[in-house]
C-alpha cells in the first residue's frame, strides 16, 4: 500500500476526482467520499481542538455519532457551523475549517498556555467562576468565549429555500440497513404504503461497509423497492423526532451534497411531517469508546469506523495498527486492516480468552492476540505515536509504536427514537447495552437497534416486523419472505470494560469527547453528591451539545454506577430528546418567514393608505394606518394635526378591521341579553347600543356596538383584535351551555368595509353623498342605523361615535370600500378632510375617557372598576353578574379607572408607569399604573388614564410616578377630559 487510498475497491468513483480545502490546505478526494473519508485518504486526521482543553482531536467515527470532527462548512451567508465531517458529502470546491482552534488548527494558543486546564473541572460552570465576582465580566467570560465554544452562526440572512411536506404512510421505516430494508420489503410486498428514510446518501446502512456480504441481495432489494408504486425511498433523510400518535419528523437534505452546483430554485432541505400508522425503527447501533489515558489522541478511532473507511471509502486510517476491543466483532477490523495492507501489531482483548470464529481467523493470519490485557495509555501529540499495553490485573506494560488504535467497547443500540416515543428502555446484561423495552406507540424496533446484532437474525427480524406492521394496517394473509442465507460467525459474549484500571494516573481518560468530560470528572461529581444521572449530566455537561452523548452516555452511566456502587439499571439512563441530529432553523421555518411568517390582513382601502405614505401599526394580524405623516412630520406632529382636525372640522378613519358578527335567529335577542351586561331585548329595530361583555368571572372581555337589523337579526361589532376570540366564545356558550337556543353566528368582518368620518362637518359630508337620506337630528338620531345609498353605493350608515364628535360609520360591501373612501375624501375636501390613524383615534377616545379593551383592561378589571355601572343591568342576569358579588370582586380598594393630569403640562407619562402615594416609603407600595397616556392637542397638555387602588375616592389628590431619574407628580381627576360639548374641561 502506498499512501492511504487503496488502488481499488470501495464505493468511491475514482473517475470523478474532487478538490477541496480544509483548514486552509488544498486536498483531493473522489465522488462518494465524505469530507472525513477524503481527509483520512490524505492522512489528515487532525480536524479540531477540543471544547475545553484545546487538545488536538482527530476523526473518531464514521457517522452521526462523530464527537470530534465538527467543521465550519462554507463561508458567508451559506456558512454552516458544526457540520460533522463524517456526514458531509464531498463536492468539488468544498471549503471547511476547524471550529474550535485559535489562532489556527496547528498552533492553538489555548492548548499552549495550559491556563485552561485548571478552570474546567467537573461543575466548572458553578465553581470556578464564582470568585472574585468582578473577574467574571473582565477575565473569565471573555476568556471562555474565546477558548470554549463550537462553530459560528452566520450573521447574514439565510439565502436558501426550504420546504415542508406533510404525508401519511402505512409503514414508516427509519433506517435502511439490512433490517430496515427487509422490513420495508416485507411490508411493501404485502401491499402497504411504505416510506423508508435513511440519513445517508446511499441506502444499505451497515451493508455498505461490509466486504462482499449480501451485495447481490442489497442490489436486488433496492431495485425491487424502487419499482414499487407504494414505496417511497428517502436517502439523505434523517428521522429526527418521534412524537405522539406516531407523528414523526424527517429532515431531507436535497442540495447540501451539491455545494455551489446546486440548481437555483430547488429547496435546500425539506422537513417531512409524517403521520405513520406503523413505525419500524431500524436505526442500527453506535460503537462505544474504551476509556483509558490519552484515548482522545488523533489516531485512536472506533473499530467499526476503521472498517467503514477501508471497505466503503478505500481509505486506510493508519499503517501500523493495534486493535483494542472487548468483543468479537472488532476482530473484523483486524482482518480488514490486514486485507488493506496495514500492519496489525496486535489485538488487545481484556477477556481471558477469545474462542469465537473471528478471533480464529485473526489468529490464522498470524496476528497476535493479547488476552487478559488492556491499553492503559496512548501517547503522542497531534498524532498517536505509541500505546502502552499491560495485563489487566497489573504487571509489566510494554510500549508499542503505532499510528492507529482501533477501539471497541461494544455496541449501543440507537434507541433515541424509541425513547422519544416514550418507550421504556431495558438493560440487557448479556449484551451490556440498553435495548427497547415496553413500547408506548405502534412501533417495532428491529436489528441492531433492537440489540439483534447478528446479520442473519437482524434480517429475519426485519422481514417479520415488516409483515406484521403491514398486517396491522390491514394487509394480512402474507407471510414474511424468506431471509437470504447468511453465514454468521459464532461469537463469544462481550465483556464490559468501562474504564481501564490503573489508567487514571497516566493522563486524562475521556468519556465525552465533544464536551471534554473525563472519567475523573464523573467520579469527582459522584463524590460531590451528584448521584442522579440527570444531575451528573448537568453538572459535568456530559452528553450535551450537538452530540447528545451518542458515544458517551453508556460509558458515563457505567462509571457513575461503579462510583456509586449501584447496578447500571438502578443508576438509570438520561432522556433522549429530539432532534436526533441538529436540524436547521431554515428547515423548521420552511417558507413561513418574512411576510409569510403570519398572515397579513389588509383592508380594501389599504392601497390608498400606502400611497399616502401612512405609517402602519400591527393590530393582531391587521395592518392599520397608525398616522399619515406630511412633509417631514414626525409621529407627534402628525397625530397632533390629525386629532385637532377631528375636533375642529373633519377626519376620516378606515374602521374596516372592526370585528363584525351577524347574529340571527328567534333567540338572538335573548342570547345577547345573556352575553352583554346591558339589555338588548328592548332595543328597537334600526337602533344601536354599545355593549360590554364579561367572562363568567366578572372580568371585562370585549366591547362594541350592536345594531338591531330586524326582530331576529343583529349586527354585532367587536374589537379588532378580539373578533375571532369573541366568535369562538359565543359559539362555546351556544354549543355547550345553551344548545336549545336558536341562534346562528356568522363572521362578516371581511364582508364589510367601514369608513368612519367624524367632526363638526361630518353631517355635511353625509348630506352631500346621500341626498336621499334624512340626516337631521330627529329623523336620524344618535345611536341609530339607516340603510341607504351613499356615493351611489348601497350602504348601512351608523350614527355612532368613538371620538365624542358627530360621526357616521358607513359600511359597504368590501369591494366597494375604496370607492366609498375616495368619495368621502372628495366630498370632504372643501372641509379640509384629514385622514387619521389609530394613534389619533386613541387620543380622541381617551380625551373622552372611552376605554380600549386590552389597554385599560387586562383580564382583571370589572365594569365597576371602570366606573361603567351605567351599563350593568340590575334587572336581568348575564354572564359575569354573579361574580360581581364575590368578596374579592366587590372590595372597595380595587383598582379603579381615573384620569391623570401631570403637574407639568408638558409631561407625557409613559404607559405602564407604576404609581405610588409616597416615593420615600420603603418598600414602596405600588397602588396603580398608567394604562393610556398621550399628548392632547385639544387640551394642550399631556394626560393619562390609569388604574389606581380606590381611585374614585381620590379625585383631586396628587399621585406619583417614580421614573428613571425623576419622579412625576400628577393630579387624579375623573376620566373624561372634555365637557359635553366637546370643549376641554381642563387646561
Amino acid at each position: 500500500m502506498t499512501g492511504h487510498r487503496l488502488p481499488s475497491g470501495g464505493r468511491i468513483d475514482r473517475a470523478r476526482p474532487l478538490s477541496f480545502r480544509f483548514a486552509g490546505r488544498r486536498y483531493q478526494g473522489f465522488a462518494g467520499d465524505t469530507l472525513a473519508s477524503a481527509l483520512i485518504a490524505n492522512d489528515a486526521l487532525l480536524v479540531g481542538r477540543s471544547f475545553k482543553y484545546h487538545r488536538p482531536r482527530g476523526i473518531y467515527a464514521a457517522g452521526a455519532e462523530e464527537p470530534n470532527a465538527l467543521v465550519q462548512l462554507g463561508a458567508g451567508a451559506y456558512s454552516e457551523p458544526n457540520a460533522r465531517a463524517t456526514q458531509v458529502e464531498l463536492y468539488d470546491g468544498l471549503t471547511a475549517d476547524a471550529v474550535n482552534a485559535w489562532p489556527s488548527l496547528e498552533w492553538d494558543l489555548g492548548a499552549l498556555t495550559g491556563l485552561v486546564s485548571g478552570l474546567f473541572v467537573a461543575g466548572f460552570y458553578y465553581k470556578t467562576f464564582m470568585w472574585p465576582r468582578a473577574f467574571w465580566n473582565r477575565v473569565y467570560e471573555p476568556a471562555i468565549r474565546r477558548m470554549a465554544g463550537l462553530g459560528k452562526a452566520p450573521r447574514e440572512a439565510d439565502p436558501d429555500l426550504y420546504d415542508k411536506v406533510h404525508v401519511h404512510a402505512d409503514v414508516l421505516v427509519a433506517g435502511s440497513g439490512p433490517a430496515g430494508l427487509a422490513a420495508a420489503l416485507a411490508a411493501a410486498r404485502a401491499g402497504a404504503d411504505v416510506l423508508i428514510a435513511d440519513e445517508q446518501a446511499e441506502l444499505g446502512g451497515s451493508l455498505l461497509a461490509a466486504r462482499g456480504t449480501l451485495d447481490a441481495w442489497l442490489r436486488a432489494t433496492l431495485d425491487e423497492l424502487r419499482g414499487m408504486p407504494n414505496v417511497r425511498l428517502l436517502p439523505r433523510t434523517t428521522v429526527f423526532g418521534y412524537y405522539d400518535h406516531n407523528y414523526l419528523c424527517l429532515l431531507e437534505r436535497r442540495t447540501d451534497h451539491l455545494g455551489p452546483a446546486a440548481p437555483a430554485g430547488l429547496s435546500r432541505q425539506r422537513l417531512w411531517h409524517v403521520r405513520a400508522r406503523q413505525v419500524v425503527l431500524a436505526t442500527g447501533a453506535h460503537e462505544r469508546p474504551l476509556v483509558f489515558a490519552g484515548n482522545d489522541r488523533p489516531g485512536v478511532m472506533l473499530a467499526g469506523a476503521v472498517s467503514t473507511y477501508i471497505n466503503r471509502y478505500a481509505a486506510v486510517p493508519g499503517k501500523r495498527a493495534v486493535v483494542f476491543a472487548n468483543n468479537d466483532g472488532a476482530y473484523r477490523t483486524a482482518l480488514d486492516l490486514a486485507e488493506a495492507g496495514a500492519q496489525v501489531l496486535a489485538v488487545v482483548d481484556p477477556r481471558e480468552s477469545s474462542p469465537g470464529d473471528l478471533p480464529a481467523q485473526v489468529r490464522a493470519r498470524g496476528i497476535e492476540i493479547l488476552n487478559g490485557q488492556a491499553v492503559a495509555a496512548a501517547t503522542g501529540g497531534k498524532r498517536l505515536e505509541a500505546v502502552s499495553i499491560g495485563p489487566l490485573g497489573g504487571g509489566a506494560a510494554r510500549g508499542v509504536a503505532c499510528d492507529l488504535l482501533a477501539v471497541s467497547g461494544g455496541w449501543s443500540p440507537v434507541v433515541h427514537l424509541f425513547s422519544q416515543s416514550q418507550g421504556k428502555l431495558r438493560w440487557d446484561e448479556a449484551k451490556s447495552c440498553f435495548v427497547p423495552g415496553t413500547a408506548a406507540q405502534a412501533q417495532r424496533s428491529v436489528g441492531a437497534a433492537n440489540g439483534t446484532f447478528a446479520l442473519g437474525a437482524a434480517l429475519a427480524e426485519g422481514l417479520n416486523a415488516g409483515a406484521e406492521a403491514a398486517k396491522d394496517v390491514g394487509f394480512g394473509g402474507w407471510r414474511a419472505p424468506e431471509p437470504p442465507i447468511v453465514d454468521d460467525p459464532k461469537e463469544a459474549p462481550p465483556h464490559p470494560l468501562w474504564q481501564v484500571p490503573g489508567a487514571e494516573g497516566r493522563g486524562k481518560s475521556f468519556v465525552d469527547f465533544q464536551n471534554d468530560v473525563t472519567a475523573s470528572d464523573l467520579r469527582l461529581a459522584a463524590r460531590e453528591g451528584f448521584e442522579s444521572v440527570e444531575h451528573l449530566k448537568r453538572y459535568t455537561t456530559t452528553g450535551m451539545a450537538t452530540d447528545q452523548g451518542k458515544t458517551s452516555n453508556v460509558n458515563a452511566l457505567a462509571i457513575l454506577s461503579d462510583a456509586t456502587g449501584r447496578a447500571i439499571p438502578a443508576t438509570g439512563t438520561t432522556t433522549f430528546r429530539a432532534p436526533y441530529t441538529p436540524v436547521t432553523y431554515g428547515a423548521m421555518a420552511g417558507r413561513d418567514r418574512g411576510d409569510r411568517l403570519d398572515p397579513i390582513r389588509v383592508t380594501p382601502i389599504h392601497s390608498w393608505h400606502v400611497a399616502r405614505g401612512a405609517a402602519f401599526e400591527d393590530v393582531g394580524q391587521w395592518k392599520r394606518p397608525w398616522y399619515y405623516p406630511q412633509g417631514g412630520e414626525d409621529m407627534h406632529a402628525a397625530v397632533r394635526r390629525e386629532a385637532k382636525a377631528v375636533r375642529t372640522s373633519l377626519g376620516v378613519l378606515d374602521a374596516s378591521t372592526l370585528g363584525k358578527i351577524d347574529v340571527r335567529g328567534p333567540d338572538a335577542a335573548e342570547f345577547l341579553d345573556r352575553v352583554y351586561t346591558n339589555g338588548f331585548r328592548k332595543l328597537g329595530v334600526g337602533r344601536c347600543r354599545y355593549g360590554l361583555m364579561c367572562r363568567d368571572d366578572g372580568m371585562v372581555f370585549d366591547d362594541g356596538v350592536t345594531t338591531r337589523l330586524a326582530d331576529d337579526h343583529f349586527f354585532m361589532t367587536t374589537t379588532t383584535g378580539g373578533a375571532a376570540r369573541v366568535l369562538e366564545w359565543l359559539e362555546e356558550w351556544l354549543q355547550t351551555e345553551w344548545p336549545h337556543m336558536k341562534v346562528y353566528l356568522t363572521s362578516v368582518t371581511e364582508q364589510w368595509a367601514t369608513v368612519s368620518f367624524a367632526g363638526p362637518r361630518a353631517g355635511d359630508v353625509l348630506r352631500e353623498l346621500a341626498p336621499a337620506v334624512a340626516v337631521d337630528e330627529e329623523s336620524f338620531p344618535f345611536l341609530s342605523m339607516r340603510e341607504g345609498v351613499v356615493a351611489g353605493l348601497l350602504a348601512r350608515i351608523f350614527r355612532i361615535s368613538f371620538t365624542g364628535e358627530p360621526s357616521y360609520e358607513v359600511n359597504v360591501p368590501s369591494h366597494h370600500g375604496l370607492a366609498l373612501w375616495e368619495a368621502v375624501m372628495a366630498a370632504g375636501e372643501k372641509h379640509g378632510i384629514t385622514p387619521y390613524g389609530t394613534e389619533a383615534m386613541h387620543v380622541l377616545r381617551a380625551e373622552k375617557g372611552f376605554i380600549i379593551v386590552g389597554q385599560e383592561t387586562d383580564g382583571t378589571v370589572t365594569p365597576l372598576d371602570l366606573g361603567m355601572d351605567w351599563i350593568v343591568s340590575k334587572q336581568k342576569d348575564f354572564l359575569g353578574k354573579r361574580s360581581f358579588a364575590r368578596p374579592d370582586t366587590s372590595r372597595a380598594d380595587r383598582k379603579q379607572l381615573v384620569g391623570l393630569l401631570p403637574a407639568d403640562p408638558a409631561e407625557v407619562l409613559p404607559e405602564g408607569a407604576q404609581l405610588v402615594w409616597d416615593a420615600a416609603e420603603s418598600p414602596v407600595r405600588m397602588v396603580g399604573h398608567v394604562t393610556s397616556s398621550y399628548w392632547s392637542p385639544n387640551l394642550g397638555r399631556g394626560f393619562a388614564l390609569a388604574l389606581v387602588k380606590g381611585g374614585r375616592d381620590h379625585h383631586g389628590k396628587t399621585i406619583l410616578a417614580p421614573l428613571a431619574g425623576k419622579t412625576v407628580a400628577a393630579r387624579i381627576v375623573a376620566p373624561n377630559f372634555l365637557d359635553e360639548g366637546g370643549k376641554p374641561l381642563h387646561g
Partner: protein
Amino acid sequence: MLLIPCPWCGERDETEFRYGGQAHVARPLDPNATGDAAWAEYLFMRDNPKGWFRERWNHAAGCRRWFNMVRHTITHEIASVYKPGDPKPELPE
C-alpha cells in the same frame, strides 16, 4: 402531535383543535342563588389527574364544533370521543 378524531370530521391533527379543559363542569342553574364557595368552585377549580380524563375540545380550524374526549394524560391514548349532551362514558381501566 395528537391525532384527534373529531366526531363530525374524523381524524385531524391536534393543531386544528383548541383545548377546552375538564368536561362536565356544570354551570350552576341559578348563579345568584349559588353561594360564594360553590361559585368559586365552578369558576376556578378543575381536576388535574394523572391518567384518564374527560375533557372538552373544539375543532376550531375545522367544523368549529365542541365535543368531549376521554384521553390519558400520560400516554395521550384516546379512548373515545362523544358529542355534548351524550352520556358520560365510563373511564377505561
